[in-house]
């Protein structure tokens, strides 16, 4: 079973297409693994084994008659529980939406269904994609599969845990201030926040309209690119959706990094906010690997991390408060304490302050993207620390803001989180590869080259 648990999506696709592996057998194996281990990890808020087996049987019949739909056909996947799947509750991990049944699929769910994927269930999230980890909610928070006493990152917590734990090869998350890349880093998997507007947000419960992104978490860069191929694309009914050419994200994977210009935003994790020594060392070692592979590396400067963070949080809390104002007025007690406090910081932001934050945003975005006239990709930290203990409220509060992910929600730039090693305590470490808008294929190319040159993929958490 362990072999099936850690098949990549690409490997599974080849076996399934060649009829060397049955989608039903594969799905049953993962369902059994989830049943055995997820009680300790809480990756799933709502597993759907019946739906999964139905999808698997359908896929098996289609593949048998030669109707192969593509790399997700017969492959299990999961959705963060802010993503609508028709007929199932979308709870956002909150008492407030406990009975909220989705009437239609989110666009991303439609696409994965059409691709023949096997839907395994709804995955744990921080409440409304912001408040967590919380123990005062109807469902428990997800835990880190590398050490269950530790935080797994969020808000796409279940998505990170499920992929790292071998429950799924692929999951969908969302990212408003880092929520795909945080669990990707904490769980040692790959997470892509693409260019703003690349993936439709329709049918995904919003946190902040102008900062929300939807994207995949997977165990390998290739799998992530395969998933982005499936979910990217213009949606005329999503006001933020961009009508740009998409797809082909695996095309450049094998091109290597020789001659690419890498800019390291070192001040984000040194001068602006000093990162944990092990995290910093791992990122620097990763940068050296890219240099050894033939990239030219130099340090670059952008606005201070604190400016990006202030801009992100002003916009996020204002937009989120507007969405939640009615519930905060009527039933504030039904939020988890952490969520309530985070949303309430948007209560008294003046209109002029919000507008000014968007004006600063425009400048930051212009100035950051101007850097790409002299570089091809940027590298920086994702988290400043390995995952802290999940029961240490002080550490969780302290490390919440210690990250360098929010800048790229502000600028809308694509940013790929990849693993770069493990701490002495055995917790994953990670970095981000960042590009100019629509440079996802280039980020995958760099991430894949790094992945091939290192052995982090070969390690898996011991779940027993």
């Amino acid at each position, binding site marked *: 079973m362990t072999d099936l648990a850690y098949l990549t999506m690409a490997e599974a696709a080849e076996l399934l297409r060649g009829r060397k592996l049955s989608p039903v057998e594969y799905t049953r194996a993962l369902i059994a693994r989830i049943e055995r281990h997820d009680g300790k990890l809480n990756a799933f808020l709502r597993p759907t084994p019946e739906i999964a087996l139905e999808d698997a049987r359908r896929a098996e019949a289609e593949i048998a008659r030669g109707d192969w739909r593509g790399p997700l056909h017969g492959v299990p996947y999961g959705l963060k529980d802010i993503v609508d799947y028709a007929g199932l509750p979308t709870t956002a991990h909150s008492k407030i939406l406990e009975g909220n049944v989705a009437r239609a699929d989110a666009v991303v769910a439609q696409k994965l269904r059409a691709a023949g994927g096997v839907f395994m269930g709804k995955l744990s999230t921080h409440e409304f994609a912001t408040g967590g980890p919380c123990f005062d909610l109807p469902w428990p928070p997800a835990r880190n599969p590398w050490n269950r006493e530790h935080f797994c990152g969020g808000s796409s917590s279940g998505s990170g845990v499920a992929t790292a734990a071998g429950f799924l090869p692929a999951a969908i998350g969302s990212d408003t201030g880092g929520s795909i890349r945080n669990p990707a880093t904490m769980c040692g998997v790959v997470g892509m926040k693409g260019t703003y507007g690349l993936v439709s947000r329709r049918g995904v419960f919003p946190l902040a309209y102008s900062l929300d992104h939807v994207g995949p978490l997977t165990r390998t860069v290739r799998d992530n690119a395969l998933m982005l191929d499936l979910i990217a694309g213009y949606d005329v009914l999503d006001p933020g959706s961009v009508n740009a050419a998409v797809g082909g994200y695996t095309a450049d994977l094998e091109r290597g990094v020789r001659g690419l210009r890498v800019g390291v935003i070192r001040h984000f994790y040194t001068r602006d906010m000093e990162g944990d020594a092990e995290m910093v060392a791992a990122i620097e070692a990763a940068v050296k690997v890219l240099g050894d592979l033939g990239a030219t590396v130099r340090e670059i400067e952008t606005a201070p991390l604190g400016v990006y963070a202030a801009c992100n949080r002003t916009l996020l809390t204002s937009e989120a408060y507007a969405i939640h104002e009615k519930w905060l007025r009527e039933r504030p007690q039904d939020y988890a304490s952490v969520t309530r406090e985070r949303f309430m910081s948007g209560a008294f932001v003046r209109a002029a302050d919000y507008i000014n934050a*968007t004006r600063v945003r425009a400048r930051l975005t212009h100035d950051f993207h101007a850097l790409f006239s002299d570089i091809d990709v940027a590298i920086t930290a994702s988290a400043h620390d390995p995952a802290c203990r999940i029961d240490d409220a002080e550490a969780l509060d302290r490390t919440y803001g210690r990250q360098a992910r929010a800048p790229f929600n502000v600028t809308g730039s694509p940013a790929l989180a990849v693993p770069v090693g493990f701490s002495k305590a055995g917790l994953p470490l990670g970095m981000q590869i960042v590009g100019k808008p629509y440079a996802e294929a280039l980020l995958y190319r760099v991430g894949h080259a790094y992945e091939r040159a290192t052995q982090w993929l070969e390690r898996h958490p011991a779940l027993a």
Partner: protein
Amino acid sequence: MKNEITLEAVRGMAIDAGLTHLTDEHLQQLLRATRTAQARQAALPTADLTPADEPAHVFRLDR
């Protein structure tokens, strides 16, 4: 907003904003949250914005 915002001030602002179901614990959270928001505001470089600096979200009609 001044940094020395008090619990009583926040209580009044909450009532004005329709947040009338907050317990004392919630109000303490709102006070902390408001102070955090003020600190964020102070960290934004708005002093040198000019009228030509337009918002990032500009209303635009598709053709």
